[in-house]
C-alpha cells in the first residue's frame, strides 16, 4: 500500500511541476501578482509529494519489501538497518529519486527562505526549477522507476555490494547530490536573469547563499568520497581521476569560479555575462556528470550498470536544459550592460584571473575525461587518459592560481597596487621560502616537487593570515582592540579567510601524500614484526570473526615506537557469502599529521599472511583542509547580508562595513 502511495505521489509531483512551470512564468510575464504568488506553494507541494515517494521507498527497504524489484535487487534481509536505508540510493533508480528529492528540497527552500527575493524573480526561478524537476520526474516514471513490482516475491534479495556497506559512504551520496543539485538554483537564477534581461548587484547578493550552500555540500561530498576510498579500497589512494570523480570535481571547480565571480558583480556591477555563463555551466556540468555516469559511454569503477536507452533520455534532458540555457545566453547576454570599469591590476582583475584559471582547469579535466570517447567516435581508436595526464596538466594551472589567491585579497578594487601588495606579503614570501628550504634539507635534493608544494601551501596560508591580520590591525593596535575588530568582521570575510586557509592545508596534505608515502609489503607470521618509517608493526594473531552478514579474517596488530605501544590495530578482510564478494577493512591509526595504514591480505599457505603497511604523512590534512573550506563556506553563508531583501524601504546596516 505504501509503495503505491509513493508511486502515486511521484505522479502528483509531476502534475504539480507542470503547473509550477506554466503559471508563475506566465504570471511574471504578465505582471500578475496572484499567479506569481502561486510559485512558492507549488514548490512546497512538489517537495512534499517527492518526499512522500522517497520515504515510501525508504520504508520498503527498511522492511525488506521484496515485492519491489528495486529492493529485491539491492538489499537483503540480513543487512543491518543502516545499510538497508542507505541502500535506497546505492542503485540507479533509487539515486535518481534522491536526485529529484534534492531538487524538490532546494525548491522548497527557495519557497520558504526566499522571502527576500522580489516575487517575480522567485517565481521565474521556481518555474525553471520545476522544468528541470518535471524532466527528471518523467524520466523516472517512464524509464527508471523504483516502484516496479516483482512477482512472485523472492525469499531474499540480491544484497548490497559489500564495498558500499560503510558508515562513511552511507552519507556521501546525499551530501554530493545536495551539492550537484543545489547548483540548479544558481542555474535557475541565471535563466531568470536572462529572461528579465537584468543582472545587478542585488541579483548577485540573492544568488549567493544558494550557491554557497550547494558549494559547501559539494565540497563535503567530494571530500567524503575521497576519504572513503582512502580507507576502504585498501590502496591508500584517495583520487584516481576516474571519470565519475571528475564528473563531481568539474562542477566544484566552476562553482568556485561562480562564487568568486558573483562577488565582482555584487561589489562592482561588472563581469555579468561571465557570471551568468558560470552559473549555467556549473549545473550543466552536473547534468553532464549524471549523463556520463549512467549512460555507459565511459568506463568507470563507479558507473552504474549502463543502459543506452537511459543514456538517450538523459542526453535529451541535458540537451534541452543546457542547450536551451546556452542558446538563451547567446541571445540575451549582450543585453546585460556592464557597469564598473577596472584596471587590469585590481581586485576585479585578480578575480578575473581566478575565473580564467579555474575555467581552464575545469576545461582540462573535461577534455581529458571526454577525449577517449571523442577519439573513439571519430576514428574508432581507443586511448586511455589516466592520472599521468591529469597530473601533468592540472597541476601547472593550479600553481599560478595558488599564488594569485595569496595576493588577490590584498589588492584594492578598481585599481590595485601590485608592488605594494607584494611588499606587504614579504613575511609570507619568507615563510614560503623557509618551508621550501626546510623540506629540501630534511628530505633531500630530489624532493624538489614536494618543496614547491609545501612552499605554495605555506605561501597561501601565510598570505591569508597576513590579510586577516591587516584587517584586524593586529600588532598595530592593542590586542584587545584587534580582537574586538576580529569579532566584528563580516562573516563573509571570515569565510574567505577560513576557506583559503583550508585550501592551503589541502595543498600541503596532497604534497605530503604524493611525495612521502612509504609502503612495506611483507609476508608476516604471527609473532613477527615489520619496520615502517621508524615504527614497528607487530602481528600478534590472526583469527576469524563473524558479522551480521559476513565472515572475516581479523588481524591483531600492535603499533610500536621503540618499546612504547602507540595503538592496537585490527585490519580485517571480510567475505560476504550472499553477494559472494569480499571487502577489506583497513586499520588506520592517525595522529592528525600522518597515518599508519594496515591491510591484511591473503594467507600465503605457510602460516603467514600478506601484510601491507603504509605510512602516509600529511594525508589527514587533505580532509581536515576540506572541512576547513566547508566551514568557511558555512560561516560565509551565515552572513546577515544574505538576509537583506529586495529594496522596499531603505535599510541601514547596524555595523559599518569596512571599505573593501
Amino acid at each position, binding site marked *: 500500500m505504501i509503495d503505491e502511495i509513493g508511486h502515486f505521489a511521484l505522479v502528483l509531483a509531476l502534475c504539480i511541476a507542470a503547473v509550477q512551470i506554466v503559471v508563475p512564468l506566465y504570471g511574471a510575464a504578465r505582471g500578475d501578482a496572484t499567479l506569481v504568488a502561486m510559485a512558492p506553494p507549488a514548490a512546497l507541494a512538489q517537495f512534499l509529494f517527492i518526499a512522500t515517494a522517497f520515504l515510501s521507498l525508504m520504508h520498503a527497504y527498511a522492511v525488506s519489501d521484496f515485492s519491489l524489484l528495486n529492493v529485491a535487487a539491492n538489499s537483503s534481509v540480513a543487512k543491518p538497518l543502516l545499510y538497508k536505508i542507505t541502500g535506497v540510493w546505492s542503485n540507479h533508480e533509487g539515486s535518481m529519486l534522491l536526485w529529484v528529492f534534492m531538487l524538490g528540497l532546494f525548491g522548497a527552500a527557495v519557497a520558504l527562505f526566499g522571502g527576500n527575493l522580489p516575487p517575480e524573480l522567485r517565481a521565474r526561478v521556481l518555474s525553471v526549477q520545476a522544468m528541470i524537476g518535471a524532466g527528471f520526474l518523467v524520466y523516472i516514471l517512464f524509464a527508471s522507476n523504483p516502484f516496479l513490482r516483482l512477482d512472485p516475491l523472492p525469499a531474499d534479495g540480491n544484497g548490497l555490494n559489500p564495498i558500499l556497506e560503510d558508515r562513511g559512504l552511507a552519507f556521501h551520496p546525499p551530501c554530493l547530490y545536495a551539492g550537484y543539485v543545489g547548483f540548479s538554483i544558481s542555474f535557475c537564477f541565471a535563466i531568470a536573469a536572462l529572461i528579465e534581461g537584468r543582472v545587478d548587484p542585488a541579483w548577485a547578493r540573492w544568488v549567493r547563499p544558494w550557491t554557497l550552500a550547494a558549494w559547501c555540500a559539494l565540497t563535503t561530498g567530494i571530500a567524503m568520497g575521497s576519504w572513503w576510498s582512502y580507507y576502504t*579500497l*585498501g*590502496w*591508500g*589512494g584517495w583520487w*584516481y581521476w*576516474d*571519470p565519475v570523480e571528475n564528473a563531481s570535481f568539474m562542477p566544484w571547480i566552476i562553482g568556485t569560479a561562480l562564487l568568486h565571480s558573483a562577488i565582482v558583480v555584487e561589489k562592482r556591477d561588472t563581469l555579468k555575462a561571465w557570471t551568468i555563463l558560470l552559473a549555467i555551466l556549473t549545473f550543466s556540468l552536473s547534468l553532464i556528470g549524471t549523463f556520463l555516469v549512467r549512460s555507459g559511454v565511459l*568506463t*568507470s*569503477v563507479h*558507473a552504474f550498470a549502463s543502459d543506452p536507452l537511459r543514456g538517450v533520455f538523459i542526453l535529451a534532458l541535458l540537451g534541452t536544459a543546457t542547450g536551451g540555457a546556452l542558446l538563451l545566453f547567446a541571445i540575451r547576454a549582450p543585453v546585460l550592460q556592464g557597469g564598473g*570599469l*577596472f584596471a587590469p591590476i585590481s581586485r576585479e*582583475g585578480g578575480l*578575473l584571473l581566478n575565473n*580564467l*584559471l579555474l*575555467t*581552464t582547469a575545469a*576545461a*582540462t579535466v573535461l*577534455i*581529458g575525461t571526454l*577525449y577517449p570517447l571523442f*577519439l573513439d567516435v571519430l576514428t574508432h*581508436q*581507443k*586511448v*586511455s*587518459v*589516466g*592520472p*599521468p*595526464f591529469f597530473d*601533468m*596538466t592540472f597541476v*601547472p*594551472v593550479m600553481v599560478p592560481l595558488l599564488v594569485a589567491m595569496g595576493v588577490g585579497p590584498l589588492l584594492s578594487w578598481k585599481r590595485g597596487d601590485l608592488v605594494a601588495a607584494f611588499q606587504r606579503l614579504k613575511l609570507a614570501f619568507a615563510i614560503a621560502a623557509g618551508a621550501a628550504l*626546510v*623540506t629540501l634539507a*630534511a*628530505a*633531500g635534493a*630530489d*624532493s624538489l616537487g614536494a618543496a614547491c608544494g609545501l612552499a605554495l601551501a605555506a605561501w597561501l596560508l601565510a598570505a591569508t593570515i597576513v590579510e586577516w591580520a591587516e584587517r584586524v590591525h593586529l600588532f598595530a593596535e592593542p590586542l584587545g582592540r584587534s580582537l574586538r575588530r576580529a569579532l566584528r568582521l563580516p562573516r563573509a570575510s571570515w569565510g574567505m579567510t577560513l576557506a583559503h586557509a583550508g585550501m592551503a592545508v589541502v595543498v600541503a596534505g596532497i604534497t605530503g601524500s604524493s611525495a*612521502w*608515502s*612509504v*609502503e612495506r*609489503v611483507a*609476508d608476516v607470521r604471527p609473532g613477527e614484526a615489520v619496520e615502517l*618509517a*621508524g615504527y614497528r608493526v607487530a602481528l600478534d594473531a590472526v583469527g576469524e570473526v563473524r558479522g551480521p552478514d559476513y565472515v572475516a579474517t581479523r588481524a591483531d596488530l600492535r603499533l610500536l615506537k621503540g618499546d612504547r605501544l602507540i595503538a592496537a590495530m585490527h585490519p580485517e578482510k571480510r567475505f560476504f557469502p550472499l553477494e559472494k564478494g569480499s571487502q577489506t577493512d583497513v586499520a588506520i591509526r592517525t595522529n*592528525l*599529521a*600522518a597515518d599508519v595504514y594496515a591491510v591484511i591480505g591473503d594467507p600465503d599457505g605457510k602460516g603467514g599472511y*600478506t601484510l*601491507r603497511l603504509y605510512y602516509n*604523512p600529511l594525508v589527514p590534512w587533505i580532509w581536515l583542509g576540506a572541512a576547513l573550506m566547508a566551514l568557511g563556506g558555512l560561516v560565509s553563508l551565515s552572513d546577515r547580508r544574505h538576509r537583506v531583501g529586495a529594496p522596499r524601504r531603505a535599510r541601514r546596516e547596524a555595523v559599518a562595513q569596512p571599505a573593501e
Partner: protein
Amino acid sequence: MIRRLLASLMLLAALAPLPARAVQPDEMLPDPALEARAREIGKELRCLVCRNQSVDDSDAPLAHDLRVLVRERLVAGDSNDQVVAYIRSRYGDYVLLKPPFQFDTWVLWSAPALILLAGLWSVGRYLRHQARMAGAPPLSADEAERLARILDEKPGP
C-alpha cells in the same frame, strides 16, 4: 606535534618506493632500484579488464601477469621505454594511462595551453575595450566656458 612532523619529514628516505596497492610480496624484485622502476612503469599501464585502474592497483590475474612480465623484462635488461613499448605493441595505445604524444592526441595535449591562451586573449581584449571606454568624454560647451572663467578668475597661489 611540530617536532613529530619534522621528525616524520626527516625519516623519509629519497628512495621510498611508490605505494602500489596490489603488488604481492612474491612479485617484488630483490633489487630496490629495479623494483622502483617496475612500480613507475606499473603506474602507467592500464589494467585492461578493470575499470580505470593501473596494473599496480588491480588484483586481476591479467594485472598480475603484466606485473610479472614487466619485472622479467627489466631483469633481462630492457629500459623503461622498451618494456612499455613491448606491452604497447601487443595491446595498443589503450594500455597506456598516459596518452602518447602523437598525431591523434595532439588536440588532447595542447588543449590546456590553447584554452589558457584563448582565455588570456579574450581577457586582454576585454580589458583593452574597457580602457577605451574609460577615456574621459569631451567637455560640453557650457563646461568649457565655466572652466575658462575659473582659470581666468583664480589668482595664483
